[in-house]
């Protein structure tokens, strides 16, 4: 019976989302409240699955289908970790949306797509079957397409199409990889394939899907362009859901389930290093506030990929903590950028300056989140970055660790540059004010969470440590 909590965590946001447009026709307040309840329900289901994950006896459910097929869901440590992270950040983003999105059209569709997005994410993280993973993966691509094109102007639609085509094409290539694995193992069930050595060509094909979803160089180009979407959407894509799907799939498939050639413990970190360095360099020259943060996402995702791919416990735990720290901090950065853009009606940082005086709460929240992304203690990003670097050194690759340290230096530099250009220096907009209270409170909560997660890092660390036991 308890296992139905997992199904509720998937179905409530998935099917609840379909009701939101109907509720929206009747009452805007009811729709907003319902959207929050749907996300909260998903979070609650993850929390309910936590004791099972911690005890090593996760909630699981399995359904047998005709023709020997089956599908199921499990709430193990990795799934619960991802689900809690994604739903917590998504909840804050939806709260923020209440202030941000209220002036725009298509709100019903917006809330529907956001909840569908979260439902798809929940389905993906709990799934124990490759086809189910692929299905939820594609639902998320569909939501992403509609949300990026939210404003419906030519530019937005073009960028939405680009994101859709790249991620769906990647997913289709990944599907071929899944078929290849099926051809070898005769099953789509992850549990049945555990420990199986899969051919390198299937790994390469699946990596296509993963790298396109997690926006890794050279399949990353859609992510900075997705900045045309409303800020809560970009925050959702970058911090909570979309790009994290890719790294989650990497952890689920290549760390926990399959065995691959040892060469991939070098190839993937090298791809990650190239991605980290090039995107960090691009971020330093960019003048669009959202594109800077977007390049930062690409760069930081490379650290997550590095941690997960270096093949040891330290790196894996570092990578998982990085997912958590990055979700919270990057969510905060995008939402702060949203407040700035919403207030100033520009994304060009050359036209900004001195906003710390008029928007002090946003400035403080931005600074806290930026410090976390930079990896400065006591913020949570420090612990994650440290463990990821330690993981790669443990795997014997000091040169690669040095490359990532250079990337970390770049991170400090481009985020500092961004903060100065936007919040310090001479005031260019002396009459602007903070965003709405709900928006300001949202970013502050994320900033404070980044700090508290650092001070109480032993709590998520305990859960992340259990993931190693799944291998």
């Amino acid at each position, binding site marked *: 019976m308890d296992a139905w909590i997992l199904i509720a965590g998937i179905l409530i946001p998935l099917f609840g989302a379909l009701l939101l447009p109907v509720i929206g026709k009747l009452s805007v307040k009811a729709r907003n409240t319902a959207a929050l309840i749907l996300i909260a329900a998903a979070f609650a289901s993850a929390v309910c699955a936590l004791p099972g994950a911690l005890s090593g006896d996760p909630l699981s459910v399995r359904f047998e289908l005709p023709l020997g097929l089956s599908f199921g869901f499990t709430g193990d440590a990795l799934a619960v970790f991802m689900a809690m992270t994604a739903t917590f950040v998504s909840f804050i983003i939806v709260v923020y949306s209440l202030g941000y999105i209220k002036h725009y059209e298509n709100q019903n569709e917006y809330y529907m797509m956001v909840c569908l997005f979260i439902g798809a994410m929940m389905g993906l993280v709990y799934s124990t079957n490759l086809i189910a993973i692929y299905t939820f993966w594609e639902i998320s691509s569909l939501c992403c397409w509609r949300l990026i094109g939210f404003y419906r102007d030519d530019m937005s639609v073009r960028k939405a199409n*680009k994101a859709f085509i*790249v991620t769906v094409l990647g997913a289709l290539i990944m599907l*071929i990889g899944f*078929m*290849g694995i099926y*051809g070898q193992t005769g099953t789509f069930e992850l549990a049945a394939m555990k420990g199986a050595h899969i051919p390198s060509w299937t790994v390469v094909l699946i990596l296509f899907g993963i790298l396109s979803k997690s926006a890794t*160089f050279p399949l*990353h*180009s*859609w992510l900075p362009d997705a900045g045309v979407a409303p800020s809560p959407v970009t925050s959702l894509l970058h911090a909570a859901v979309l790009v994290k799907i890719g790294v989650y799939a990497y952890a689920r498939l290549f760390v926990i389930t399959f065995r691959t050639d040892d060469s991939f413990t070098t190839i993937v970190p090298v791809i990650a290093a190239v991605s980290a*360095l*090039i*995107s*960090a*360099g*691009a971020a*330093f*020259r*960019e003048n669009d506030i959202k594109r800077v943060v977007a390049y930062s996402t690409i760069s930081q995702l490379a650290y997550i990929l590095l941690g997960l791919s270096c093949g040891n416990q*330290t790196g894996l*735990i*570092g990578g998982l903590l990085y997912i958590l720290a990055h979700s919270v901090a990057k969510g905060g950065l995008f939402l702060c950028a949203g407040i700035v853009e919403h207030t100033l009606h520009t994304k060009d940082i050359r036209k900004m300056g*001195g906003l710390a*005086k008029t928007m002090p709460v946003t400035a403080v929240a931005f600074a806290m989140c930026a*410090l976390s992304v*930079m*990896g*400065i*203690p*006591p913020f949570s990003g*420090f*612990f994650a*970055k*440290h*463990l990821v*670097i*330690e993981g790669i*050194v*443990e795997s014997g690759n*000091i040169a690669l*660790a*040095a490359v990532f*340290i250079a990337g*970390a*230096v*770049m991170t*400090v*530099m481009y985020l*500092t*540059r961004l903060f*100065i250009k936007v919040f*310090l*220096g*001479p005031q260019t907009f002396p009459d602007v004010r903070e965003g709405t209270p709900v928006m300001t409170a949202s970013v502050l909560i994320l900033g404070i969470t980044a700090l508290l997660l650092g001070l109480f*890092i*032993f709590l998520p*660390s*305990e859960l*992340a*440590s259990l993931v190693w036991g799944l291998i």
Partner: protein
Amino acid sequence: MINAFVDFISSDCNYIICMTAVPVIFGFLIWLLRKNALLIKITAFVSAAFNLAAALGLYAAGDIKTSLPFSAYGFEADFRIYGLSSLFLVFTAAVFLLIALYSAYSVFGKKYAGLYMLCLYLSLAMVNGAMIADNLSVMLFFWEGMLCTLTGILLMGNFENPKTAVKALTMCGISDLLLMLGLVITSVTAETAEISELSGIPAEGAGAIGFALLILGAVGKAGGMPFHSWIPDSASDTPAAFMAAFPGAFGKILGVYFITRTITDIYAFEPGGTAGIILMILGLINLIYGASKALGQKDMKRQFAYISVSQFGFILLGAGTGLSAGISGTLSGLFMQVISITGLFIISDGVGKRFGTTEIKKITGFYKKMPAAAVCFTVFALSIAGFPVFGGFFSNMLILIAATEAGMVYYIAGLAGIFLTTLAFIKTGFAIFGENKKQRGTKEEKKYTGRTGIAAAAIILAVTCAVSGIWNSIMTDNIIGRGAGIYTDRGGWHNALLPAAISMCLLALALWLHIYISKKPGSLSDTSGETKSLIEAGKFDPYNILIACVGFYSDICTAVEHGVSWIYDTAVPGAVKRVGMVLHRADNGLLSRYLILAVCGAAGILAVFLIVLM
């Protein structure tokens, strides 16, 4: 009662709470009391005195080790007090007592006074935490945590011109990241991150990289080259209380503490080995570069900032010898430098407040207005220059003795560095004690708040300089000997006659040279026009060089990025469009052509599936 206090402080996790949590609590308390001058001063005194008492209690208690239950993976919350760490805790606490009191007097009434004091106390907690941590990662947590408070203070009141804060964050951030890599390599090489279990790691292979990175990180924290350039800039932008606390005391104490631990405990450091030679050369570069730059400065605060860099180089020279005399000299030199440089910054604060400027030429003859400050300046300058009687003489002597044993070239270079430092002080001293008719009688002097605090702090520090010189063996043999377990038998005056004579000759030579050159047109500190303009434009500033390199690299990345975007936005859609047009032309509406195309498409899909299934 004292025994009861020592027992209390050393039992369970009390020392961890007292050294880390209590300063944080006091910091917030002072922040809450920020509008009441008397309460701020009382709280600052009580808290700093408690911190000193706790540090002394731990020094008396000896070896203590505690593991806290809330450890994260890789961050085991282990803490330990032993000789060297307790010695440094006492150093820090003693200096902090003065800095806290001085800051309470100096910054009260200013806009960010409460926040400044809060950051100061948070930094104390971080410094204490880094010294008592027995896990490399936990130590880094405290160590790097100071970046937040450092940047925060530099930003206060400088929102419109945050360049120095950015520079400090970048340079210190880089050195901290290098330290992170060094710590990780060290713990992986030793297969443990517990500091008390790290001993004698060979500095070869990965260990050599780890060692070098640890030293670079510590040099960065102590404000040494090439991470130093934010310090002179911050001297212009920030109150002297900051300069005294951060580059003057906290950073230097922490940096030297870790260098000492690295070479005495963690790595197998052989005197005269390659690592030692590199360390000594790095020290000499810092010493001579800092002193030369100090000589050329026109502003008193910037000059003291460069002297701080130079003096760090001198103690690095001592550490690099790896000999007991050198390390003892490093530890006592650190203490004397922290006292003297803190005192110099405090004086510069008083001068700035009184005259509205710290430009050396404009304060000529200030000894008449501020005689106590002038005397204190003389004491600090003579102590740093190694004049007998003052504490600095003995630390200099120990370092130079060790340098002689390491090689005559280090001794001569060390003397040259001291000579340049002395020249810089003489230049400022002549301005202070000289007569300038043009400036005399100007109405620049102002009444300012905090005079008592400034004068008291400077006098206490100057007396400490003198006392630690007269009874130098207490410092070298008892305090450092007992704390660090390094005994030199070099303390006392009976060993000091020849070094004292050399020091006096050096001082006389510097004095003569200054008088001789000042009569000539131009001065020793003047450089050629072209070089001067390059220096003034910051062309040799490591930070500016870094920014230029990163800018160039970013241009390349942006070009790559544009190339990738072109593929996605232009090339692929263009190719698809062309293929579509070709197919469109190919489909002429005839059934036969349609069937050929359909069969080709189906064959393609079938081929893919066959490949997959095979």
